[in-house]
């Protein structure tokens, strides 16, 4: 490193300063999305922080029979029952087994609340809204349904609001409804 020329060194220094800058400070907060970045299988995803109540490392998960494959099970979330779903099912990603490093991102809005299983957490960052790109042609249909955009570095930003509002994610079985006859 001592042999680097003066100009080279200044180039490297400038890059280092640029790299060191937290992403959130690069531009003003206007048009910025605060997101939580995580990994599903080998892909990088993000969800807007405002829908994320908390990131919760869980130990035991109780699988529930008679539920769709995307329901991983229920966990004891500070004395409450939290259902956890695996988006990998919808995104045609390989469903890995669970391990003790599993975490759930707890999504909450209004009365709806559930956990999304993630394989690894990458932390929070800010994304300039205008840099978000439309769906890539490789994204399958359902992923597009929940898509907010794709960042230039390939992180798929999901729309937490759509996930929370999607009735298709709510398990409501045929029986045991107690509906009154019309």
């Amino acid at each position, binding site marked *: 490193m001592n042999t680097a020329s003066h100009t080279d060194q200044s180039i490297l220094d400038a890059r280092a300063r640029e790299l060191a800058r937290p992403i959130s400070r690069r531009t003003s907060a206007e048009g910025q999305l605060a997101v939580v970045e995580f990994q599903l299988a080998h892909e990088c995803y993000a969800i807007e922080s405002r829908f994320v109540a908390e990131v919760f490392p869980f130990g*035991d*998960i*109780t*699988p*529930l*029979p*008679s*539920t769709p*494959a995307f*329901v*991983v*099970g*229920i*966990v*004891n979330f500070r*004395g*409450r*029952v*939290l*259902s956890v*779903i695996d988006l990998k099912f919808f995104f045609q990603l390989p*469903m*890995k*087994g*669970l*391990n*003790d*490093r599993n975490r759930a991102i707890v999504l909450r809005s209004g*009365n*709806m*609340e*559930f956990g999304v299983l993630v394989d690894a957490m990458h932390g929070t960052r800010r994304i300039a809204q205008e840099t978000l790109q439309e769906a890539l042609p490789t994204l399958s249909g359902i992923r597009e349904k929940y898509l907010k955009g794709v960042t230039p570095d390939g992180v798929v930003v999901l729309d937490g609001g759509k996930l929370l509002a999607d009735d298709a*994610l*709510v*398990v*409501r*079985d*045929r*029986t*045991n*409804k*107690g*509906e*009154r*006859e*019309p």
Partner: protein
Amino acid sequence: MAQANDNAVLKSIMVTFKAEAEEHLLAISEGLTELRRMPPSGARAEVVERIYRDTHSLKGAARSVGLEMIEAICQTLEDVFAAVKNTELPVSDGLSAAVQTVLEEVRRLVEGRKTMAANTWEIVAALKAAIDPQPETATPISEPDAPVSGPPSSQTGAAPSAAAVEAAEPDETSHEPLADTVRVPVARLEALLRLVEELLRIELMSTQRSAETATLLEMHGAWTKRWNGLVPAIVSSGRDLDTTSAEVKPEPASGPEECLADAGRELSAFHSALKGFSTRLDVDRRWTSSILDHLLASAKEVLMLQFSVMGQMLTRMAAELSRAECKPVALTVHGTHIKIEKRVLDEMNDPLIHLIRNCVGHGIEPAEVRRRLGKPECGAIKVSLSQKDGNKVEICVEDDGAGIDCARVKASAIKSGLLDAAEAGNLDDGEILSLIFRSGVSTSQIITSLSGRGLGLAIVSEKVEKLGGRVRVDSTPGQGTRIRLLLPATLATFRGTLVRAGDRSFVMPTDSVAKAIRFSADQIHSVESRETIAFAGRAISFVKLADVLGIPDRQTGENKGQVTALVVHSAGRYIGLGISEVLGEQEILVRSLGPQLASVTNISGAAMLGSGALVPILNVADLMRSASAFCGAPRPADPAPDASGEVKSLLVVEDSVTSRVLLKSILQAAGYEVTTAVDGMDAFTTMRTTRFDLVVSDVEMPRMNGFELTTRIRQDAAFKEMPVVLVTARESREDKERGIECGANAYIVKSSFDQTNLLSVIEGLL
């Protein structure tokens, strides 16, 4: 700003007023009914007094929120009741009906209507006229400074009776019951009750801790025993040493023996300390448990409501249905004073509506049919509540209608595919009647807006069973039908039977379990594609719980040939569910599965055990349906693979019993299936017969140590990919290197050995 605040205050006051008004209205209308039935006596005065006060309070409340119309009506009613009270004015049917009509009108006003039916004022006026002739008689005591003297400023005014009011104004005691009463919104009480129920977890937890301590004590006992057995051996080997090489060991032989004796004493001191701790823990647990029981009972008591709340609603509904169906029907409610917890009552809302609809819809015959049969034209429906043993109440809904036509039920059940004709022939009437609680069975030949879809009663039975109750039906053709709902008076915890099916645990509500049985596999008979077993002298369907739930069923070798099953019942039907084992019975705290899992087939909720673990609670009614669907379908050759991935199987090799038990429990808690071996030799033999995903081994062991075992594993073609984790007390660089040399994937030193480290290492290797 101030405006907004005022609005908010007014809004919240209105909520309070509504609640209060509803209570008063209910009390007045009940009192009136009671009064009509009563012979004139001393008790009568008491009832009148109560009605009077309720009316008075309602009037005051209406005035405070500026509802002048209600205030004016109450003024009139107050006058009427004052007259009844003071003059023995008879409560005629006409008077009673008029008052009820007026009360109904007030109820609508309370609910937010702004105007009244046109004839209401006429009725009010008529009421006034009824008492006006005798105003002078209503002046027993005069209290000039009575508070309610402000002239009501309604459009009608109540001036003519003002004198009566003032005269009849009771003393201030009418407000006294309120002085030590606090009005609290139900939602807040329910939140409080939920919190108290949360405390039950403490009880469950301390039970768990107690059990864990008992295990510790047991482990320590085993250790002590082993120690005591070892000491003579050590001592004698020490002596041998002394005799062979006395000059090498110059200390007196008593040295090490004393040390051993000391250690032995410490061991037993520790044991008795642990024993004492365990006992105290038990005492604490019992104490906590008794206090919590009291607390919970008191909290529930607060939320107990009189059945009359429901009775009123049903009476009104029956009247409406009677009009709509053009069938004269009278509904009477009995046992209105009995209290039920609000949540139970709330849950019973829909079922009772269904039952009353059923009674009116197809229980009670049309008037002309009744006339022909010589029955009174007006059909009678009786809803009665009675207290039963053991915190139970029974709601009985009876009608004097046509009764249930068993033949028609049978036909409907056959039509909907629940039964075949042969099966139907074998059923007795009671069994046939219980069919009406199953979906798709209806005796109605036409579908009306009220009934006939065959769903209503199925829901009744499900709701009741969800609360841990039971439904019974009996019917005499031509005479009527009686449906009895046996319910817990209070809710929350119930007894649950914890069972294992496959490698998962489930809770079965104990109320639904008729019996847990064990029998040999050859007692299962195959009838066509279905399997049956004998229970209480009859054949009932048998199906494995794991199969119904579609989870893998791991048959443990030792139990081959023996079958454990729970006989469960729902709506009069019995079924045998094959399980792996019964784990125990305990108080269960029910929790919902959360908003994303609004309703799940076969699962009604989750129970949180003392350990914090969640266990799904089975829904028996659903299971019955799923089981019959399963029996009907051909057995799937390959059960659907478990979405959560297979359970990894580990081999733990440890010569120390304590470490072995500890390791095993840590790994089992982490969700692994664990087999143990006592040394390397044992392990290697076990590996030949059983497949494992990973080996966790101690280093120092007799016969074959951990290094040797690892080397053997690496040399064997079948196992050379097998991950091996060495766990040891030796923290030396040489050992670590040796471990890596012989091919171990990880080397964990016990001093740095905490579970997270071990678990993350294992997880990383799997």
